[in-house]
């Protein structure tokens, strides 16, 4: 196995051995501070806050990317400010997130050890949230090469957010996907219909209370395909061995 960290290799398999930079004296670089923002993005943030005023509920820089949470009624205005004032003409994506922790798979003594165990306490991400659902989007500028992430909370009972279609034409498909996966409707969208799923599909798959259907159909460990050795008698399929 070559996962042993720190293996030293000689450089003889490089043709230009004289130009090889040896990394034996590499400086251990400090990982950058996740909350640092460079000059450009800091100014971007200032301009945005100046334009939107108190519509900005919280901001938090993350790995060089400003994350801004805006008020519910200013979602489209934030997009307009981003496009017109900050010259962010490029829409990267719009998506949603469900902050509710996923219910544990099966019951207490279930043997399902396959999935990572997520903490059961509710916690929110950068710039916080005041509810279960959020819509977040990322926009960038093709000319100035800066970008920012915008977030907005979605009320759980109404499940309504403002649509970005009048601002960015590409929001059409992203919002359709968001509606399909989370059930968040977008006010002002021309036609919210299914994008990935068949039109008769019920439910919103990316919500945390929507189970992974393949586990429901056949509980973990699923179909264990074990061929019996030639001498051994055939074993019935229900006594499948743990092939972990």
């Amino acid at each position, binding site marked *: 196995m*070559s*996962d*042993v*960290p*720190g*293996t*030293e*290799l000689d*450089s003889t*398999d*490089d*043709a230009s051995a004289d*130009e*090889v*930079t*040896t*990394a*034996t004296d*590499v400086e251990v670089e400090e*990982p950058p501070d*996740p909350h640092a923002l460079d000059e450009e993005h800091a100014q971007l943030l200032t301009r945005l806050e100046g334009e939107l005023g108190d519509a900005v509920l919280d901001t938090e820089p*993350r*790995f060089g*990317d400003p994350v801004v949470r805006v008020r519910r009624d200013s979602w489209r205005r934030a997009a307009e400010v981003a496009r017109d004032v900050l010259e962010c*003409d*490029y*829409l*990267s*994506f719009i*998506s949603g*997130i469900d902050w509710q922790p996923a219910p544990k798979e099966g019951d207490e003594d279930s043997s399902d050890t*396959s*999935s*990572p165990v997520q*903490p059961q306490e509710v*916690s929110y*991400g*950068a710039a916080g949230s005041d509810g279960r659902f959020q819509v*977040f989007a*990322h926009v960038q500028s*093709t*000319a100035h*090469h800066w970008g920012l992430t915008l977030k907005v909370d979605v009320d759980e009972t109404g499940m309504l957010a403002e649509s970005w*279609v009048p601002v*960015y*034409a*590409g929001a*059409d*498909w992203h919002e359709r996907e968001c509606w399909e*996966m989370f059930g968040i409707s977008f006010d002002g969208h*021309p036609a919210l219909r299914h*994008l*990935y*799923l*068949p039109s008769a599909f019920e439910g919103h*798959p*990316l919500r945390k209370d*929507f189970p*992974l259907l393949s*586990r429901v159909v056949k509980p973990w460990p699923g179909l264990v395909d074990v061929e019996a050795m030639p001498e051994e008698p055939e074993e019935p399929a229900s006594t499948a061995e743990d092939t972990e």
Partner: protein
Amino acid sequence: MNRPPRVSEAEQSRASTGERVSAVGASPTATSEPMMEVDPRLYRHLADAQVNVELDTGDMILNLGPQHPATHGTLRLVVRLDGERVISADPIIGYMHRGYEKLTEFRTYPQITTLINRIDWLSSFANEVPFIDAAEQLMGILAPPRAQYIRTILTELSRIATFLLFLGEMGLQVGALTPAFYGFRDREHILNLIEAATGGRFHPNFNRIGGLKDDLPWGWVNDTRTAMKTVFDACDTFEDLVAGNEIFEARTRSIGIIPAELGAAYGVSGSNLRASGVDWDLRRDGKPYLAYPEIDFRVWTHPDGDSFARYWVRLQETREAARMVLQLLDQLPSGPIMTKVPLIIKVPQGEIWVETENPLGQMGYYVFSKGATGPFRVKIRSASFSNVSILPWLLRGVFVPDVITILGSLYFILGDIDR
């Protein structure tokens, strides 16, 4: 004998003017609206738009797909035709939806690496890179320089592999049978290299959080240098055989022009946007990642924004990628390929957005982590999803054969659209 100048030289001088295609006053919304004043260069595209008004015939609805040789997989395009002219087109996707974003919530980070290989299956190494980068940044670790270099080399090799296939099959979409075979043949050299290094031609699954799984085999560097020569030859062949062909030019020039602002609003990225004159490449302009800050490369743009421009930009980028690989091989540092990481990887709480310049366009992962062995939510931003979303606007008023040309020139992969 006076040979006419290579397509490249003529196009290069135009490409370096830096102009963009713009649609002044074009409607930004996705609904079908009449085209208002447009850039005069679009006129050639619209000149033949004479609807037959003498015969009031009904429209015909044609289903292109989901099984169709031109749609690169299971994409269904419901077009409404008037004779041979498209009135409206509606792409219906999701035939290959595998639910990746849901699946990632039930997998550990190394398991997700296996999954996301299969998003864009032609350049699969490139899919792993942003995710691994995200996990490493959240954990606060840095892969050693040698690992970064090798990752870059393998990414550029996947870019070459994908683009060689594109150069061949674009000819196939337009009707030339032969370039497709040349594309596959030349791609074999690259796939052999990737297989030698990683063990898999298509799904290498080679990245690990903190570095790579293994080091390069003996003699790989020399083999790669040789293979890059064949790449240059192949690009020359494609330039003469396909890009220089008059019929190919007649079929692709002024077809499917994407204005730069509209493309950006739809999220069109990568070579498609650069072919409309937008000088934006995440390897150079985004946050620094892998070994790109240490090498020199040129970003190719083209002012036209039509299908020919997209073909030409990818052709140049293939050559550029080969040059980059040669530079990286020259500068390849020695050293470890994996930093010290714990056996069970738990990524601390946080969220991060990482984007890279993948062969198909801008690919990004927004990873939310709550400190467990797997992520809380991963939003996969795939390039082809946005590239295909512009189709309803782009396909209005074109002929049926042009639909095929446009689909071919946008170069999407179904796994990338549907995830």
